[in-house]
């Protein structure tokens, strides 16, 4: 599955705006700081480009937990930031009616007596993996099984696009760097030939 062109445009634009806003330059920052600033820009860009999904809000909420990121996020997102920050809690439990839960447990118990025990092993494995996936996908804890898969699908597509776009940006910069270096060293090479 491919992302839309609009996503790619929005992502690149947003990321470069983010670079500029965080003033990524070798003079002001060390290597680690630069790396984390770039990563932050990239994540925010991905979330902004995708629009409103559960995982995007979870991602921005997670990023803004670090106090140092908050000013950056506010700058980048502007008024969107306030809107995004409002009802997103990572510890939001899915509200469930007790009566229905009790009734479904009774039905499950009745059915379990008939079924064999092999299914239980599979179910625990699935539950364990689901829990891991909830940790990986941003904002995943407050999702039930189906929406978790849905958000995972979306998140994977966006992550892949993010990685591809960053890769292409990297190769472009490296290519232009090479070109400028070759142009720059050409007169030097000529001089060295003349000298020899």
């Amino acid at each position, binding site marked *: 599955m491919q992302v839309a062109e609009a996503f790619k445009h929005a992502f690149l634009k947003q990321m470069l705006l983010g670079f500029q*806003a965080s003033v990524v330059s070798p003079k002001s920052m060390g290597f680690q700081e630069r790396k984390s600033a770039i990563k932050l820009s990239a994540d925010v860009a991905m979330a902004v480009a995708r629009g409103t999904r559960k995982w995007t809000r979870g991602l921005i909420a997670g990023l803004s937990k670090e106090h140092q990121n908050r000013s950056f996020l506010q700058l980048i997102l502007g008024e969107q930031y306030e809107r995004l920050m409002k009802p997103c809690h990572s510890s939001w439990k899915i509200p469930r009616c007790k009566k229905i839960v009790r009734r479904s447990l009774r039905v499950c118990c009745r059915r379990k007596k008939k079924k064999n025990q092999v299914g239980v092993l599979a179910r625990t494995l699935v539950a364990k*993996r689901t829990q891991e996936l909830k940790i990986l996908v941003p904002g995943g804890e407050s999702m039930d099984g189906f929406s978790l*898969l849905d958000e995972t699908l979306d998140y994977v597509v966006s992550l892949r696009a993010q990685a591809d776009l960053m890769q*292409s940006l990297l190769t*472009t910069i490296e290519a232009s*760097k090479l070109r400028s270096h070759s142009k720059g060293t050409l007169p030097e090479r000529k001089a060295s030939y003349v000298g020899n």
Partner: protein
Amino acid sequence: MQCLRAPLSDLSVLERQRPRVEWQQQGEEQSDYQPYDADYCMQSLLPVETAFRALHSCGGGVENENHGNVHGSNDCFSNAWPDIASGMHCPVVGAAASVEETSVNASSSSSSSRKRKSENTRRSKENSGSDGKDDINCKRLKEETGGGATPEAEQPTSKENDKAPKSDYIHVRARRGQATDSHSLAERVRRERISQRMKYLQDLVPGCSKITGKAGMLDEIINYVQSLQRQVEFLSMKLAAVNPIMDINIDSFFGGREINPTCKPGSISMIGMSSELLDQAYLQLGSLQHDMFMDSPALLLRPDVNPPAAVSDTSLGSCLNVSGSSVWNTNLQNVYGVEFQLGRGTALPFQSLQGNLLPNNPKMEM
């Protein structure tokens, strides 16, 4: 078995027409589903699948239940076709193409009893759109061809996919020999939705086509997500290493040229958002802007003089061409054209911004 050949072309017609129908019916709800129009189209096939599979299992055997959705839609379509008279073809195609629902609605309410259940409004709208007719036609043909007892016995206990755009209900048909209480039906719907998502994820994650179990699939998905996250981190590290070059001119280029991304008509919010961002960007650039615009043409003309400022216009353009975009070829006519077609109120600030920058652009395009 001639009818096996014909339906495959009909199926493609069905698939082609379905997205159009969905579009007509569901306007702005597309906005959240931009990245996958394919996915959105695919979703609507599910209820038709269930309808046909239900039909098939009614015809013979309950084994289909265990296969789940893994086989894909083509199988159940080709299985189902022999059961149905060829008169099915026309109604199916007609159902997909047409949008009027009132006549069939009236007939469906009279033909069978229903059990209702509340669900996602969006899902019910998708379901209700085109397959209500399929279901009803299936049922009618079944009544004609099958025996008297079994279909009638099924009727009181079965549900139907009904088009009821106002209600929030999803209608499901109970299969022959299956329990028909609401819990098991709800579970079946849930399981089918989950298995459909797993199928998409299987297509997405490389190397997952052999794995069929849910736990194994989840394992692969987790590994893939972790590897993608690690890859992003690695790339950001590389970008940090190479970054000293990327100092100045990018943002001026960006601010000058990338005004209006080609948004799909549903995404008003994105246009609005990018206008805000551009405003911010312009505020930030502020006094730098004059210098940038003055300097950039000079820098472009003599790149060898200033090697550090190496991210040139064309290279950034080529970077984005790698992404396959065409707006970057600075066909401003097209950009304006897109904007006017979109015709949103929020496009107006763009136009004013573009008016300011237009004199500068010819210089930059060199």
